[in-house]
Structure formats: structure tokens, C-alpha cells
């Protein structure tokens, strides 16, 4: 009973507070990550040579270095050149750019899987390159990329827990403070784990629903 009291009066309120911060980190980062991913993926396939190289370099750097290092760079590194980001802003910037790099991989793969014939057909109808990308290629590629992109969003939910490393106190941060204060690591982190599990399950359900909504004959995913 003692445990339950502790949970109700201490753990739950702090975790809820952190939960709100986590959500406010995840939603914009996931959205920006997808946007960056679509743009970067498109540029890596259809951009001019120098742009392609530039974006390839971006992806190589953000996929090739630990996210914590990136977060440190945004929060502790940028002030050296006179740019000060709040812990929250640094986290969102870090997550979006890292997520965008991964998303661009899924988008790029999906773009490359679109049959070339459809592009010829679009061009033959007088579509410009940009109109073709928007009306013919992306709508198909994004459907193909959706499972991968969804997976990346689920990863993002979990790695959002790194924000506390740059003093943005979200759910994991709250838990850490609480646990070390009362010295109840097991209980508190089990509770945090459950919170993430709920979040991830919700996101999974939403993505599955979205896939169903966007499904078109001929675009069903295997196993349906």
C-alpha cells in the first residue's frame, strides 16, 4: 500500500509532467523529421549533382555520429559561435535532423522503387520534373516508405529520452530525478518503461490505421 501511495503522490504527477514535455518534443520532431526526410530523400534522388552530394554528406554525418554527440553539439557547441539554443530547442533541432537523415533513407529507397515507365508517361504528358515528383512519384513512394518511416518515428519516441542529457527534463529526466531522490530506481523506471510502451503502442496503432486509410488496390503491404 505504501508503494501505491508513493506512486500516486510522487511518481505519477512527475511522470505526467515529463510526459507532456516528451510529447511536445516528439510531435514537432517527428513532423520535422518526416519533412526533412522527404526533402532530403527527393534531393538525393532527383537533385543536381552538387546538391545530391551535399545532402549525402548531411545523411552520412547524422547517421554516422551518436545522437548524444549531436545533442551536445547543438546545446554546448553552438554557444561558441554565439548561438544559444534553449534545452528544448536544441533537443528538437537534434532529433529532427537526426530523424530526417534516417527518414531520407526510407524515402530514397521508395523513390528508387517507382517504375521508370510511369515517369516517362508523366513527362510525355507534359509534366515538369517538379509536378511529376509531386503528383506521380511521391504519392506512391510515400505509401511504400510508410512502414519504414513509421518505424523511425517509433525509434524517435524512445530516443527522445536523450533530451535530459542537455537538461531538457522530459519523462526520463523526471524519472531520474525522482529515482535518485527516493532511491527507488526499479519502481520508477518500470513505471517509465510502461509509459513509453503505451506511447509506442499508440503510435503503432495510429500508423497502422494510417496505412489502412492510404491503402489502394495494388499497394497493399505483404501479409495483408
Amino acid at each position, binding site marked *: 500500500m505504501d508503494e501505491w501511495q508513493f506512486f500516486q503522490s510522487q511518481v505519477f504527477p512527475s511522470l505526467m509532467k515529463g510526459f507532456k514535455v516528451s510529447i511536445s518534443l516528439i510531435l514537432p520532431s517527428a513532423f520535422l523529421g518526416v519533412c526533412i526526410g522527404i526533402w532530403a530523400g527527393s534531393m538525393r534522388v532527383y537533385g543536381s549533382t552538387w546538391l545530391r552530394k551535399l545532402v549525402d554528406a548531411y545523411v552520412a554525418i547524422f547517421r554516422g555520429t551518436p545522437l548524444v554527440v549531436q545533442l551536445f553539439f547543438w546545446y554546448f557547441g553552438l554557444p561558441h559561435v554565439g548561438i544559444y539554443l534553449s534545452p528544448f530547442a536544441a533537443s528538437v533541432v537534434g532529433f529532427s535532423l537526426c530523424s530526417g537523415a534516417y527518414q531520407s533513407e526510407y524515402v530514397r529507397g521508395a523513390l528508387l522503387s517507382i517504375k521508370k515507365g510511369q515517369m516517362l508517361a508523366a513527362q510525355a504528358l507534359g509534366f515538369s520534373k517538379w509536378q511529376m515528383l509531386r503528383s506521380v512519384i511521391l504519392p506512391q513512394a510515400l505509401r511504400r516508405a510508410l512502414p519504414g518511416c513509421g518505424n523511425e518515428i517509433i525509434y524517435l519516441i524512445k530516443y527522445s529520452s536523450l533530451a535530459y542529457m542537455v537538461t531538457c527534463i522530459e519523462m526520463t529526466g523526471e524519472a531520474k530525478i525522482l529515482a535518485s531522490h527516493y532511491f527507488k530506481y526499479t519502481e520508477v523506471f518500470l513505471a517509465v518503461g510502461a509509459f513509453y510502451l503505451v506511447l509506442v503502442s499508440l503510435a503503432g496503432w495510429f500508423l497502422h490505421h494510417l496505412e489502412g486509410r492510404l491503402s489502394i*488496390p495494388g499497394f497493399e503491404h505483404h501479409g495483408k
Partner: protein
Amino acid sequence: MENDPILRIEDIKKAYRAREILKGISLSISKGELKVLIGPSGGGKSTLLQCINFLVMPDGGDVWLEGRKVNPHRKRELYGYRQQVGMIFQDFNLFDHLSALQNVQIALLRVKGMDKKSARERAVAELERVGLGKHIDHYPAQLSGGQKQRVSIARALAMDPKVMLLDEPTSALDPELIGEVLAVIKNLVANGMTMIMATHQISFSSAFATEIIFMEDGLIVEQGPPSKILSSAECARTKEFCSKIYDLHGEGN
């Protein structure tokens, strides 16, 4: 001015690396004509058709539409030109994520900037014209090969092309589906559409072509009315090829 060519190409050349695929092709076509391209596989028919609307950029040569030379390096001009030249592909190339109706109306909306209502009306009319009025909401995955090809023809027609280029429109089809597509093309001929078509449908060509052009190794070997090319070709290679496709496709169209 009846006989002024609608489309004229002059000395079109194309090479991939050192291999010359088109070695200087010239031809012209007037309103209402159907010119059929025949020739052995690898002879350059598809490459020529794609050079005509610059899906493949020729290395040299010029294209004239209604007496005006096309400059493919000016994007606006190129897109405008392509809207006037319809293209039909061997494997249909429908947009897989769009229904038959959407396939036909998308270019009307996005390229021609038509309003939704007129685009829809036009698309429905074109689909009805190719006999697909009942299938407008079907997706490509739900259509047979013959139906897909008819959608692609409707999609091209909706743009009001001045010329159509058809690259073996029936050769990816099962034999029992070829007839329905040829019937649509016959209809186009009857309505005065100007067309250049690569095909091995010999009996169809002999009945409807204004001229048959025999192409081999990137060159036009011989051209003339079907009666001449098919029965009394001057060139030995043309004769040999024609007798071969007669054996293969001659009967049962």
C-alpha cells in the same frame, strides 16, 4: 495546305556510348496519316519514338511541329510541345496509385490547369469513348492489360494531341485482348488522328497504314504504302523480315 506535315523530323541521331542506335532518321507525317514502323528487335524503333518527344534526348537532328522547330532545351517550350504529342507505351505505364478516372484527369488538372468539373467531364468522356465507362473507379491493379492500355489511350486523348506516338501498344497483351485495343486505334484512324506506331500487327497495318516504314540498325531501309512493302518490297531484307512476321503474326491478327 492540306498536305503540310504536322510533324517532321530531320536527321535524328542517337548513340549510347560509342554505339549508334539511330543513324540519321528523317520522316514527316501529315494530318490523318498512320505511319507504321516495323523492323527487327533492337533496330531503334522505341528509341526513335522517344526521341520524337525528347524522352530520349537526340544527339542531333531537328523536330518540327506544324512548321515550328522545337527547342527541347527551353523547358516551357518542351512541356508545351509534349502536351501536343500523345505517347502510348508497350507496358501501359499507368499511374498505379490513381484510378482510371484520376489517371486520365491528372494531367488535365496539373498540366493544363483545368478546373475540376471540366477535367472530370472530359476524363469520363474519354473513358467512355474507349469503352471503359463502367470502370472509371478501378485502379490499374484491378484492370486487365487491354483495359489498362485503353485507359492509357484515353489519358493521351484527353490532352487533345496533334500527333500520337504508339510503341507496340499490343505486344504486351494476351492474344484475346489485342482486338479490343486495335479496335480503339482503328477508331482513332477513322476520326482522323495522326499517328506513328511501332507494331508487328501486320494485317492491321496493311489495312489501315498510310505508309509502312521498315527500320533496321538505326536506318530507314525502305518505306512506302503497305501494298508495296508487304508484297513487293525492293530490298531483300525488308522482304525477309515481312515474310517472317507474316509467319508469326500474320494469321488471326
